[in-house]
């Protein structure tokens, strides 16, 4: 048993500088590359709101690319940190933001709204005027919150984190079963709509939804940051944490709450984005060669934002007009990268060994 290794001092600023520059570059690319070819000068004009900018291009940059890029940043950072918290909480390198069943809950909510319209009366949601995208977001949020509440209740009663893990897994199966039944009775268009939702996308968030997404992500990230010392202690086991004078109960609550808030919010707005949550924390650990959460949380947030933006860039296939499913891109491009890193380092479990 040893305390988390402190990162080598000279590595820190350089690492953050590189990540920050990478994010800036990716952000610039997100704004300037897309299905429609827009010259760089026009992009700058559109952003600055200079007179004489092409109104169509201006709208594309401001209403499509900017919210999309911001969503990618928020979602990437949120999923990465949520995954980091989950991995530390369960002391398991395979944990991810969805291990508590949050995304299963969200999927179930969306499946009910999208495919059970026939049972509920197709008009109910439309009549409420919250049809379409908003109702999908609301449904995912309700589903995620429901699971979250159950998890929190159990977390309060049960001391063993593994119980939570198994609960999350089992809930995933149960939710999957209900989704299967709904799919069986849904028509082709509804099924297709649901499948499209599971592809994940950063493009569906509009400016009117951005404040909610941003607020929830900021709250979750700040909460995680505030918990970074407790997370360090947790890495060494709950008993150790208790001996350090930590209120394990409160910390557990905080970690589960912030991790679920981040994962649930992103899933509600972007669909279940795979891979980022599990891989990015490893990426950050390998880049900074540390398991200190004071470094890891910001590093994971930045790496997550960078990975999400790069994946989105590829998914948009700049210049071609067609798009690829985001989830396919994150997995296809991310997996070889992480495998390469792991094989190079070979000591994945090091951080988790106690």
């Amino acid at each position, binding site marked *: 048993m040893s305390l988390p290794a402190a990162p080598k001092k000279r590595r820190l600023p350089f690492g953050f500088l590189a990540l920050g520059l990478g994010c800036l570059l990716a952000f610039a690319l997100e704004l300037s590359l*897309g*299905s*429609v070819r827009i010259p760089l000068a026009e992009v700058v004009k559109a952003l600055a709101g200079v007179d004489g900018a092409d109104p*169509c*291009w201006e*709208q*594309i940059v401001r*209403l*499509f*690319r900017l919210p*999309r890029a911001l969503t990618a940043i928020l979602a990437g950072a949120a999923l990465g940190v949520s995954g980091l918290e989950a991995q530390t909480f369960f002391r398991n390198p395979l944990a991810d933001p969805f291990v508590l069943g949050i995304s299963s809950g969200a999927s179930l909510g969306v499946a009910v709204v999208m495919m059970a319209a*026939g049972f509920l009366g*197709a008009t109910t949601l*439309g009549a409420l*005027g*919250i*049809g*379409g*995208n*908003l*109702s999908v977001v609301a449904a995912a949020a309700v589903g995620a919150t429901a699971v979250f509440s159950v998890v929190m209740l159990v977390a309060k009663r049960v001391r063993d984190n593994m119980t939570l893990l198994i609960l999350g897994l089992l809930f995933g199966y149960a939710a999957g079963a209900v989704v299967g039944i709904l*799919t*069986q*009775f*849904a*028509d*082709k*268009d509804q*099924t297709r*709509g649901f499948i*499209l*939702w599971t*592809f994940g*996308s*950063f*493009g*569906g968030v*509009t400016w*009117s939804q951005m404040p909610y997404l941003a607020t929830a992500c900021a709250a979750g990230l700040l909460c995680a940051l505030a918990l970074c010392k407790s997370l360090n202690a947790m890495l060494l086991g709950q008993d150790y944490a208790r001996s350090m004078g930590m209120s394990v109960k409160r910390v557990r609550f905080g970690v589960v709450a912030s991790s679920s808030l981040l994962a649930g919010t992103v899933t509600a707005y*972007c*669909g279940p984005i795979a891979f980022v949550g599990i891989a990015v924390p490893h990426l950050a650990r390998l880049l900074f060669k540390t398991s200190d959460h004071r470094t890891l949380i910001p590093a994971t947030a930045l790496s997550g934002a960078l990975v999400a933006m790069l994946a989105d860039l590829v998914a*948009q296939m700049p210049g071609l*007009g*067609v*798009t*690829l499913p985001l989830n396919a891109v994150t997995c296809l491009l991310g997996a070889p990268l992480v495998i390469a890193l792991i094989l190079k380092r070979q000591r994945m479990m090091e951080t988790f060994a106690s």
Partner: protein
Amino acid sequence: MRIAILALLLLAGVAGRATDLRRAKCFTVEQKDGYKLVKVANAWQGCGDTFDYALVPRGAKTPEGLPPKTMVVEVPVRNVALLSTTDVGFMEALGLLDKIAGGSNLELVNSAALRGRIARKRVVEVGGGSSAGDTVNLEKLYALRPELVMTYAYGSPSLDSYPKLTEAGFKVVLSASYMEPTPLGRAEWIKFVALFFGREAEAEAVFSKIERDYLAVKAKAAEAEKRPSVFCNIAFKGAWYMSSGGGFLATLLADANADYLWTDVKGDGSAALSFESVFAKAANADFWVNVGSCKSRRELLGQDNRHSLFKAFRDGQVYNNDAKTGPGGGNDFFELGVARPDLLLGDLAAVFHPELFPGHPTIFYRKLPE
């Protein structure tokens, strides 16, 4: 001599001349010695094989020397189970509703006459409760024992029901009308249905009238001075699935003398485009059609409020094809509309060129309400 010729003509008449197909590309009919050979090609996207049916007059001897995979069907068929509501329009036009003994997804049926028969329990639901593919409740179908089962196939072992039904001893006929790229081609499948019931002459008459009316609307629409630009479908999470340029809808739009902006999309289905590329091209388009499940402008904005950026939206020129939706939620666009492309074209031509079709009431299309 005269008598001989007359007899010959009569004989030819009795045997029926090979069905004359002008628009449909996915099936052929050949008059053979004592039977008709019907071949369905392209039963699904990329289906390399044909499905062959030998239609033998009831009571006649089964012809010999048929290729092994040819299925023999005694015609006229006395009762049929339809696993898709798409063929209901054809059956009704041919006066054959009383031959429908069973069907799947019956709640989606729009035809009032057939709904009446369903209510009187003259038609049995044989569906398995899912429309992802034509899953069938085999036990119900066994109890019904229809002489013929008409269905579609997608070339997917998990979705297609015909292999299992064939194995179970049912005479299963695959229709491929959905693979026809043109509205008239799809409507000509009424002749395919008619072949199994000995109603070829009626089918020819019905189709000829539809074809005539369709071409008349097309010719009139072509007189319009302005060719409005049009696009279709809606955004979902930043992606936009645009119908292909050579498909059913694109042909209708072109024949209604409108300029469909995505004629360059290849293939039979649709292409996943990004919202921004659609916006760049269609921002100033005149019309917007087929907005899916959106029943009002408000719902369209609920789906994505950037839909309001389109000129067609601001001008209120958004039309959906859901005006004629049945009590069970089935859209008649896909039932009656398939059988009556002349009515579909009439709707669109009246939407695009109201000056040429004053006072024309649309049937399937409606302006999206607030």
